[in-house]
């Protein structure tokens, strides 16, 4: 049964032109790879991070100084998050410049835009978690920016009910960062790939 499953994951046929590297530069595939690295390193970081304002920073310091490979994993997580944003942006640019958002792929373009938005949101929610000065003030300014949006005050009340730096706000950013946003991204990415496969496109890995 497993063999059958693996067999069906791969496409029946591949167009020769799709195999040229300059066709897509594999940017989407590389972005997905960063997402996988982020998931892996993030799962490991979960074992040490403590999502409370008083203990968050200390837990990160403990991870950095007393855990074998802790500093490496955290750097890798941070670096891959930067890579994901850059690659998703480049992928979007490639899609725009080659006109790949046009008719049959319109639905997939919209899903891709949602993925771009979710990547930025995941990065933003993750930025607060270390609870250092940079995290605090970046989130503070970001939450003021949100207020400029229509319904921005309501959105702010949902995200930071007890102001930036409060225990509820940190817990919400944590829940969004480790479950809700990544889950939405993985589900959307799978749909994104499903549509590509159905339109006979080429996928990363498979």
């Amino acid at each position, binding site marked *: 049964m497993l063999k059958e499953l693996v067999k069906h994951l791969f496409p029946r046929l591949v167009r020769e032109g799709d195999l040229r590297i300059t066709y897509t530069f594999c940017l989407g595939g590389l972005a997905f790879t960063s997402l996988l690295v982020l998931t892996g390193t993030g799962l490991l970081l979960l074992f040490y991070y403590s999502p409370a304002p008083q203990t968050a920073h200390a837990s990160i310091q403990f991870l950095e100084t007393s855990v074998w490979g802790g500093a490496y994993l955290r750097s890798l997580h941070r670096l891959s998050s930067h890579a994901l944003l850059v690659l998703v942006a480049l992928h979007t640019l490639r899609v725009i410049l080659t006109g790949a958002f046009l008719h049959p792929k319109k639905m997939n373009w919209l899903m891709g835009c949602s993925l771009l938005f979710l990547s930025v949101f995941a990065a933003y929610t993750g930025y607060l978690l270390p609870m250092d000065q940079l995290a605090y003030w970046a989130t503070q300014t970001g939450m003021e920016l949100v207020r400029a949006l229509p319904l921005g005050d309501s959105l702010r009340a*949902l995200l930071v*009910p007890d102001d930036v730096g409060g225990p*509820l706000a940190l817990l919400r950013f944590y829940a969004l960062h480790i479950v809700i946003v990544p889950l939405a991204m993985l589900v959307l990415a799978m749909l994104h790939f499903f549509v590509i496969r159905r339109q006979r496109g080429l996928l990363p890995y498979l």
Partner: protein
Amino acid sequence: MAEAPRSRRSTLRALILSLLGGAALWRYLTPRAGAGASGRGAVSVPERDVPAEGALVLPQHRVAIVRGGDDFLALDLTCTHLGCTVKATEQGFACPCHGSRFGTGGDVRKGPAPRPLRRLRLDRRDGIIRVSRA
């Protein structure tokens, strides 16, 4: 992707259910105590702690009490641009985030701040100054 046409009944039901669900989720996620839990309510200080022709700055409360002779003025130290806490300088206040400058009265000297610093309610009674964020 041709979709089966939805009936009016199922559309209305979906609409009502999602509105009810959204309203319930909103109530669940906005606790009543949330808004006041920031712990930055009122501050009281003795008048003599404020230097004449100077200011007493309480960064942890984000409040400055500016004094010119016998006139007192309470300013909210939250920058009106993006909400950083401004720092007291010799000329007034400066925001470390994006470089806004304010005069000693809270007036904008240099952008990007769009408005002067917010003035807070200040009550003087028996030599005690009480500043509240009402």
